[in-house]
């Protein structure tokens, strides 16, 4: 795993499918082994910040979720939107990975040409008594390696799913309204969750 980190830092580009597999398995392995971590959301979030976040392009993700209005946002609004959306995504990721840590994964080989700069990495989450769940990562090649710009769970694109919600909020109260809505959503989760996990530990 150290080798993977080193490879990324050295600008030696890890193929996108290998990257997804390594990062997923590493994070799941850490969560499974560390019982302490399972009861402490803050630690899970910290783990995701260091291991997963560097492989996401949250600016791209936010732009896709905001849609056409993105071009009307000021640079400062874009930064704040991205920051809030990133916080929400990291929290959602933390909940998901904790819930699905005991599932088996099937990492599909990449179907892309070596020259492609926009690819989809397919993963299957295997389940008992149900068809496997598709987990697709849309990734783009950047100067700093491959970055995820959308995640599709069972064909549900995360960024597309936020688009209508965001559009409704922006229609009512503008881009500022959306920044505020995301901010209070995150603040509400922040209030609710660390307290809950602290209770569980005692």
């Amino acid at each position, binding site marked *: 795993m150290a080798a993977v980190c080193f490879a990324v830092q050295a600008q030696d580009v890890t193929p996108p499918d290998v990257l997804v597999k390594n990062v997923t398995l590493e994070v799941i392995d850490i969560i499974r082994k560390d019982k302490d971590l399972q009861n402490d959301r803050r630690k899970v979030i910290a783990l995701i910040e260091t291991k997963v976040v560097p492989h996401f392009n949250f600016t791209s993700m936010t732009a896709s979720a905001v849609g056409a209005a993105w071009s009307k946002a000021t640079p400062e609004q874009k930064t704040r939107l991205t920051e809030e959306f990133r916080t929400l995504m990291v929290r959602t990721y933390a909940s*998901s990975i904790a819930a699905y840590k005991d599932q088996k994964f099937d990492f599909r080989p990449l179907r892309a040409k070596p020259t492609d700069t926009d690819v989809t990495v397919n993963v299957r989450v295997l389940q008992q008594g149900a*068809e496997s769940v598709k987990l697709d990562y849309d990734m783009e090649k950047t100067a700093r390696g491959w970055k995820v710009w959308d995640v599709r769970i069972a064909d549900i694109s995360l960024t597309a799913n936020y688009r209508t919600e965001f559009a409704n909020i922006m229609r*009512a109260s503008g881009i500022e309204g959306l920044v505020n809505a995301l901010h209070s959503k995150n603040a509400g989760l922040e209030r609710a969750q660390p307290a809950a996990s602290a209770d569980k530990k005692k």
Partner: protein
Amino acid sequence: MATGCSGGKVRGLLAALALALASGCATTSGGDPRDPLEGFNRSMYGFNEAFDETIGRPVASAYKRIIPDPVRGWVRNFFANIDDLFIGVNNLLQGKVGDTVTDWARFAFNTTIGLAGINDVASEMGLEKHNEDFGQTFGRWGAGDGPYLVWPLIGSSNVRDSAGLVLDSYFDPVRRHEPSGVRTLAVVLRATSKRADLLDASRILEEAALDKYVFQRDAYLQRRRGLIHDGNPPRGPSSRLTEEPRAEAEAGSTKQ
């Protein structure tokens, strides 16, 4: 999400339903063309949420807490095995004969070697489980979504999938089972098992959504689109928007 209810609870539910209908019809916002009945749907959604909070979720949580993991697996597999029969029929109606053979082979192996379906031996043999229903078949035949609909206890649907649902439940072997006592028990157990499997997902939804109604609706519509096209939907609204946001995004990311 949860399906089926029995006996004495029905009257109380009807009263709650009437209340939901009376209170929510006027609140239409956004004016989404896919959801012209948003006012009605939101009130149904509110009713379903209330039902889930008072009955669905507590029962499902208790089930998950009390019944050991392997036993819950048997229950899940038992009902999933019965589903394979009509999954096969729907694959046949969609012209996917190979998939039908798989579905019915799954049913044959699981019903016999898998002991009435409680063990999914077919998956271990490499026979992949599919997800099909009459709504997907109609979609495959070219039927559009029609307006989005939320039904009491059933949850998200649309006109096409509602028509499909009528056939799904008409042919449902569990609902056709006699005597009715066993049938009711089976329907409730199946609904409980399904809800229990969604406990984590619904908690994540709670966290992720700003407006749960909109989030769930859009997820349903995207999901059904994916299912109808067996996981290869033509890239439409879910793909990247225009060149402009992307160019902006790249400019933004190099700055960091």
